[in-house]
């Protein structure tokens, strides 16, 4: 039976000399899903991905890529993966075509050239030009194509849309969805929360080398977590409200306006509000951005 998890890390730690980059990263990415990897700069995204490909060796913890330990058998692990580095550097002296042919040769010509040509056409890329004459966006297109051209089981993309114009960003996201539809697993890091929310099934938020939140995007959109902004006619004591199961206080203004976060259904809260002089109540679902910003802003506060 195939390993149900495409990527699985447990308690992954990594330090660079005195600098601790990962403090115990736990990740579980299901096969055939799109997992986003969000975090501020320096959070440990690239380090985590590079550990998965055995480019750097973790100090502790375990990694499995499609059930394979990349440290024990890096070739087997990488043969399943299409990788796009965050900082893409290509050999400037080659043409884009030469680079793609070289990359294909590294995989024993696993990719069909006709498929590569399709991708080239979709990205509107002139592959006859030397890499040194390509813009950074066009170099990125070469990077995306080389990662996808052999239709890998797992795509590890570090900032795949960075540096691309909006049209090409959309094309990359479309390709990511197509890859998932073909059965591939996509694990990608991004700073663009909107695009992550648009395509990802699951979002892992990393901060200071620890995965602090794993969000199921579908669940986020359909269930449960809501925010309620309630206005009362006069100042009230809300202590009874915030003691209700699944209810927590986000903010309060002059005891006449409160913002609550509710996990689960609203029934208990609404019944409890029956004894309060409620003037207005607005409920919203928190966006991925608001969840992410919660962690990001906490970090900024700590730094300042």
């Amino acid at each position: 039976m195939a390993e149900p998890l495409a990527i699985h890390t447990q308690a992954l730690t990594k330090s660079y000399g005195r600098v601790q980059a990962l403090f115990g990263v736990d990740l579980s990415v299901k096969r055939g899903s799109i997992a986003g990897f969000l975090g501020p700069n320096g959070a440990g995204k690239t380090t985590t991905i590079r550990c998965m490909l055995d480019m750097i060796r973790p100090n502790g913890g375990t990694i499995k890529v499609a059930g394979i330990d990349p440290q024990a058998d890096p070739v087997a692990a990488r043969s399943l993966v299409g990788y796009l580095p965050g900082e893409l550097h290509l050999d400037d002296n080659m043409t884009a075509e030469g680079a793609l042919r070289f990359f294909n040769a590294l995989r024993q010509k696993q990719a069909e050239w006709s498929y590569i040509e399709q991708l080239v056409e979709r990205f509107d890329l002139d592959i006859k030009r030397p890499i040194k004459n390509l813009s950074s966006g066009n170099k990125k297109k070469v990077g995306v194509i080389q990662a996808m051209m052999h239709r890998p089981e797992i795509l590890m993309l570090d900032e795949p849309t960075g540096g691309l114009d909006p049209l090409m960003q959309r094309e990359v996201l479309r390709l990511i969805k197509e890859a998932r539809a073909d059965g591939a697993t996509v694990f990608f890091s991004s700073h663009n929360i909107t695009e992550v929310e648009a395509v990802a099934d699951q979002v892992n938020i990393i901060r200071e080398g620890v995965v602090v939140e794993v969000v199921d995007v579908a669940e986020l959109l359909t269930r449960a977590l809501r925010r309620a902004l309630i206005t009362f006619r006069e100042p009230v004591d809300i202590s009874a409200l915030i003691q209700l199961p699944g209810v927590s206080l986000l903010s309060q203004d002059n005891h006449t306006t409160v913002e609550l976060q509710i996990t689960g259904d609203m029934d208990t809260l609404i019944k409890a509000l029956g004894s309060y002089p409620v003037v207005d109540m607005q409920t919203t679902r928190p966006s991925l951005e608001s969840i992410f910003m919660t962690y990001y802003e906490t970090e900024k506060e700590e730094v300042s």
Partner: protein
Amino acid sequence: MGTIFRHTFRRSRGAILGWGLGLFALGLMIIPIFDILADQQEQLNQLLEMYPPELIAFFGDFSEIASPSGFLGIEYFSYMPLILGIYGIIAGSGLIVGDEENGTLDLIMGYPLSRTSFFIGRVLSVFLTLISIIIIAWLGIGIPSLTTESFSIHWGELFLPFLSLLAILLLFTSLALLMSMLLPSRRSAAMVTGILLVASFFINGFASINEDLQPIADFLPLKYYQGGDALNGLNWNWVAGLLGFALLFVLLSWWQYQRRDIRVAGEGSWSLLDTFRRNRRRTFPKSSSTMESSS
């Protein structure tokens, strides 16, 4: 491995053509001079008597310049390790770290390619590049020697000093590779190996006029480079010794490459210093949290 080997060797075409053709042309120019020098041996000896012994020490016994082996030793092979050694050091120090510093290694190592395969492909490629340059240089000497009447050495025999040269080049190339694995940057690896090459050249030269330097020279690689003397009989033990050390340096480099982290791009830091700091930190743990530098 084959793909890496072919790709790297293809990239070395310019170096082979540039260095090879340059040395080929040098050979074409030098060999015809031998006839002229042989005719003017007496005047030349008078001239050489005025030269300071320190200068003569670097180039060998000038009284031998009328013999083909002495001529080649002085006019060609005496400085060749320095000239080609520079190429070897640049190529060796950048063999893997060059790609790491310019960031292309990060992508290549994302492919199903073991570090060993990559390493062997690269090493074989640079060694073949050096062999190609040496062969072209040998042809540059061998071809005109066929038409120079007084040059009484068989063209095949002329390859012996090139073997000695190849052995010393492989040694310095391998040493530069090892240094690049141990030191934080390609620049520092090339600099350290380059200093050793130049120091070896000078100490070995001065050792012939200052016996006190001889024990030091015995430990330096150039002592075991024969140059033109190889035409009087190649010391196979010395060649084997140089190649043995080259192999040892390659193996140590491979071992280090297996263990180390691959950088995204740019130069590294002094790992020994980091180790020292780490050990100190273990002894005196700091309470403050560390900052991250990589994402």
